[in-house]
């Protein structure tokens, strides 16, 4: 169900663009890596449907009233300044916030129509289908083979483990580099290779969705480029939601983008994140509706 659930303010954006905004900070040029048509999203089913989602830590809301539909087999970026709750929002999609004591959720997170937070839902089952790649690569202190095989083993996946490992590594664009050193320790790999290993590890359990929490922020530009290329390949089979504080990256890879901003409450003590705008990336970056979005994507504010 492709609904336009994004929260838009009306009218200001375009006008401010015409009203003599300084040319130097004009709209960002989209430097897309490939020419992938974006229009498909309107026909693809939504894999996530968030309804008035509010996530609080110890009673203080970190993000409030999020209502978005995230499309299947697309790359959706969640962007915004630091501290606006992007990671919190991402982690709510696979119930990783359950691990934080004092975290509470209100509202709905519908995954293919089922509320992930309904009573009786098992977080372990959720995480089998919705995988996650973290900001800092976190391979296990084991061999490359055992890293990949861990997921299939604990999930009891049937089949030849060697084949499963090879398939995951091929899909993660890492097979050629490690096929001769599967028994070697994962900690001996470079940062970029470790992160691709973490992606392959996630792929090994055959998820439906991949969540990525700033996956390239700890990596060099060459590794970053390789992972972005990988994301394009993965988009064929998996739905990807990526949090990034790097606007250019969002512009390069994503099909849709949700821009969050942070608001102070009345006393000025607590910061809460809210969605400002949610649209095709191309529109978001060339013709944003909200002036806050425009200020962020043109770099006027951090």
């Amino acid at each position, binding site marked *: 169900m492709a609904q336009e659930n994004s929260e838009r303010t009306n009218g200001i954006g375009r006008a401010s663009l015409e009203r003599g905004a300084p040319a130097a900070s004009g709209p960002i040029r989209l430097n897309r890596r490939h020419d992938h048509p974006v229009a498909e999203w309107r026909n*693809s089913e939504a894999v996530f449907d968030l309804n008035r989602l509010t996530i609080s830590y110890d009673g203080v809301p970190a993000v409030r009233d999020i209502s978005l539909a995230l499309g299947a087999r697309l790359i959706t970026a969640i962007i915004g300044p630091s501290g606006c709750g992007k990671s919190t929002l991402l982690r709510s999609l696979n119930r990783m916030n359950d691990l934080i004591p004092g975290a509470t959720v209100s509202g709905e997170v519908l995954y293919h129509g089922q509320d992930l937070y309904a009573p009786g839902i098992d977080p372990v089952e959720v995480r089998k289908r919705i995988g996650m790649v973290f900001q800092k690569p976190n391979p296990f202190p084991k061999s490359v083979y055992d890293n990949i095989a861990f997921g299939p083993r604990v999930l009891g996946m049937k089949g030849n483990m060697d084949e499963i490992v090879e398939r995951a590594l091929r899909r993660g664009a890492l097979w050629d580099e490690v096929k001769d050193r599967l028994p070697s320790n994962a900690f001996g790999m470079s940062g970029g290779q470790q992160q691709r290993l973490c992606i392959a590890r996630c792929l090994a359990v055959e998820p439906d969705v991949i969540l990525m929490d700033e996956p390239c922020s700890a990596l060099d530009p060459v590794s970053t480029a390789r992972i972005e290329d990988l994301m394009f390949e993965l988009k064929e089979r998996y739905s990807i939601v990526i949090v990034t504080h790097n606007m250019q990256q969002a512009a390069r890879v994503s099909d849709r983008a949700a821009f969050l901003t942070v608001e102070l409450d009345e006393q000025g003590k607590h910061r809460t994140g809210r969605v400002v705008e949610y649209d095709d990336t191309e529109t978001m970056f060339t013709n944003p509706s909200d002036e806050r979005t425009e200020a962020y994507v043109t770099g006027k504010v951090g």
Partner: protein
Amino acid sequence: MQATDATATPRPVTIRLGATRPRWGERAIAAALCLCALVSVATTVGIVVALAEPSLEFFRSIPIGSFLTGTKWSPLFSPPDFGVLPLISATLVTTACALVVCIPFGLGSAIYLSEYATVSTRKVVKPFLEVLAGIPTVVYGFFALTFVTPLLREVWPGFLGDPPQVFNALSAGLVMGVMILPTVASLSEDALSAVPRSLREGAYALGATKLHVSTRVAVPAALSGIVASFILGISRAVGETMIVLIAAGGTPNLSLNPVEAMQTMTAFIAAAGLGDQPTGSIGYKTIFAVGSTLFIATLAMNIVSIRLVRRFREVYE
């Protein structure tokens, strides 16, 4: 809306996200682990119950007032005397002798390691202290009896009065002090290291000497942790058995003179246990009565010490 992309593998439409079966194994494991943690609670309960019952029976026959204030302890004579003061005074004397060693030298070692020592010195010294802490108490007792006592008897200056007897509280106490020194040193050093560098640097910037900074800035800032280490040291001295059993003597003696032989609470318990008292006899029950006194005293000190360390950690971490 229908999915239009036909090249990807079709996803199952119904997705069951409840657990396929209730995870009994997980719950059983969590319960088993909780039981393991409860063993420690059971231990404390067991100690209290094991001590309480015979002690209460004991105090039914012997009034607690005369127990705590009586000055003669001879429970196995007839007529028996049950005044525990001689045992308590012996414990106090040996503890005092231990404190004379472990407090100044333990704190001094801690200050040196924390404020003065280089990394390489610390690497050499810390293992020494760990070894000191790891030597079995029966070995310390042997050392006290066969080395320290003869040494003291030889070099004892005349103006101090009579030289130490073959069994005496002083040797046992001094050796106990060395045994406890690593405990005081390492806890105090932890406390000193937790004091932020900025405090010291502020004082140095004002022109203070190292002596000033160590004694007037670092130590006062770490004071509650240091005091906690002292209290823990006292608790260990009070509870120590083998050293006093071997070197301090087996006859109760109400005296504050450390060169005399005397029997501490712990030594009495051990000796009574050795003597194989029949269950239920008054001699058997004295073990528990004295044991209760010992346990309550050390419990109070331990709780104070643990609280102090916690409060200290909250301030600095």
